[in-house]
């Protein structure tokens, strides 16, 4: 070790590698290609892809919270439900154009997440998880007790009228397809920009060791707050998409829009794909999508299967598919990191 700093004239910092740059372009190209889905593929295929897209949104948002903020939430369904109900409220009660209502619902999700964050972010670990769940249940009960006929109380409601008075079923399918693809692409882009920004390195530091991050000056609470609001908006957007896709919703029960099954799915996707990696949740969403499309998609056996696969991963591949690959090959397909090049 030398006491005098050796000059490193050729050292430079690289953010894009050929591999990651190529992959990013490929991914952007894929989104453009997928945008032609409605003219290329069957109604059935579009329906399947819509599901895949909102699963991607949910996985990416849950990973943003747990993977980067260390915030293991089991209450993100609160925002799915809020997003879905906000669309009904705005489009049925206030006759707003439903896709505009979906956009507003996303912003409402972000707005609601701010006071929620002010409460739950002070909780740690298990208390945070339980706190978020309590918040989700509280919202579900509030909605179920709402006497407003548009909301429908415990029996639920439907956005059939606002959608069907404006659009044919085919139009609704196509627009919902584009909305889902666009939401997934935009949220991924936002997270990508966020992780590449100055805050991004801090978020990864929080992910790895919150206390150590604080000791080098990282504003931990601010970082977590940004993630929580982003996840609130993203999950509300997913809820709005789920509403546009299935039209009728209920507030209560594990399968409802406020249901805890959503958390089970989000956790599954992120653990299988790779917690705390950018790419992992996308892979996890594809795995879940394949399982529910080709193996089973309902009933007890579905969740038994999810549980078995998740336990298998926890035992054999604790870093998930992408985390394992990344560890073995030290690759990064989406360039959110920094590489130092050109040292002698």
């Amino acid at each position: 070790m030398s006491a005098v700093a050796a000059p490193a004239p050729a050292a430079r910092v690289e953010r894009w590698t050929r591999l990651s740059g190529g992959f990013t372009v490929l991914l952007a190209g894929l989104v453009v290609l997928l945008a032609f889905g409605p003219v290329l593929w069957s109604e059935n295929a579009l329906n399947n892809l819509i599901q895949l897209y909102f699963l991607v949104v949910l996985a990416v948002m849950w990973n943003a919270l747990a993977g980067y903020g260390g915030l293991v939430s089991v209450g993100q369904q609160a925002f799915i439900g809020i997003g879905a109900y906000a669309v009904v409220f705005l489009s049925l009660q206030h006759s707003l154009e439903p896709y505009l209502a979906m956009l507003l619902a996303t912003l409402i999700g972000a707005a609601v997440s701010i006071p929620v964050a002010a409460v739950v972010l002070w909780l740690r670990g298990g208390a945070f998880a339980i706190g978020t769940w309590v918040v989700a249940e509280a919202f579900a009960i509030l909605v179920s007790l709402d006497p407003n006929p548009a909301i429908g109380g415990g029996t639920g409601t439907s956005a059939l009228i606002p959608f069907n008075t404006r659009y044919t079923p085919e139009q609704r399918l196509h627009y919902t397809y584009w909305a889902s693809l666009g939401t997934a692409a935009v949220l991924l882009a936002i997270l990508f920009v966020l992780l590449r920004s100055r805050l991004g390195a801090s978020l990864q530091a929080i992910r790895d060791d919150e206390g150590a991050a604080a000791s080098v000056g990282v504003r931990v609470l601010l970082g977590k707050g940004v993630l929580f609001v982003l996840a609130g908006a993203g999950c509300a957007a997913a809820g709005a998409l789920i509403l546009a896709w299935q039209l009728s919703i209920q507030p209560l029960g594990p399968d409802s829009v406020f249901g805890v099954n959503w958390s089970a799915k989000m956790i599954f996707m992120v653990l299988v794909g790779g917690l705390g990696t950018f790419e992992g949740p996308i892979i996890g969403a594809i795995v879940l999508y394949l399982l529910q499309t080709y193996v089973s998609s309902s009933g007890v056996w579905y969740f038994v299967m999810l549980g078995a696969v998740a336990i298998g991963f926890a035992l054999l591949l604790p870093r998930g598919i992408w985390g394992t690959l990344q560890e073995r090959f030290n690759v990064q397909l989406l360039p959110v990191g920094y590489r130092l090049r050109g040292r002698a």
Partner: protein
Amino acid sequence: MDEGVKLLEAAGVRKRFGALVVLDGVDFAVGAGEGVGIVGPNGAGKTTLLNVLAGTYRPDGGRVLFRGEDVTSRAAARRCRLGIGRAHQVPRPFGGMTVFENVLVGAGAGGRRRGREKYRQAIDVLELCALGDLANRRAESLGLLHRKRLELARALATDPEVLLLDEIAGGLTEGEAAELVVTVGELRRRGIAIVWIEHIVHVLVQAIERLVCMDGGRVIADGDPDEVMRDATVVDAYLGSAAVR
């Protein structure tokens, strides 16, 4: 020490964990650019004092002052941004990030540098701590020596006025410890004040000019290293702890 030049100061600090009194009215100060060593048997409260100085723990009594300003209620991150850097006894790298990225976090969040200047700071710190060749390695794959160096490098990247080092030579060989002494010497030349906890006194005295000995949550000696090591209470504390071991 002269009243006017105190940089970081603990005044009458008390800290309890349940019924266990760990800091029992500690007065400690370091001046700008000064090098102070802290020794004392295991469990004396050295790490706890550092935690109170760095803002990881709130003391139950007493105050912490930085440049004369009361920072007792300031959080650790804020104190780091003010200029108090800290290296943990057990290294706490950001395992999923590379060595270079670890240091960048320090330079960006703690040192509040941007862009090119941030990179230059990080590269400089890596070279100084002999980590340049490992810049792109994931931190979790490092061995103890390099983890210890990274812990120091990351704290250094935050641009501290005072650096709190907790047994950064612990578990290293004599040769490796000697290299750390050279590095710390360079930091001193740059005007950074050092508070260094270490058991290996003969290593420590090469890098500091004042020694503090703690025992049972109190400062039992403070002054010239040779005098402190000859002090009867210090000898007693060490023999006592040696007898227990």
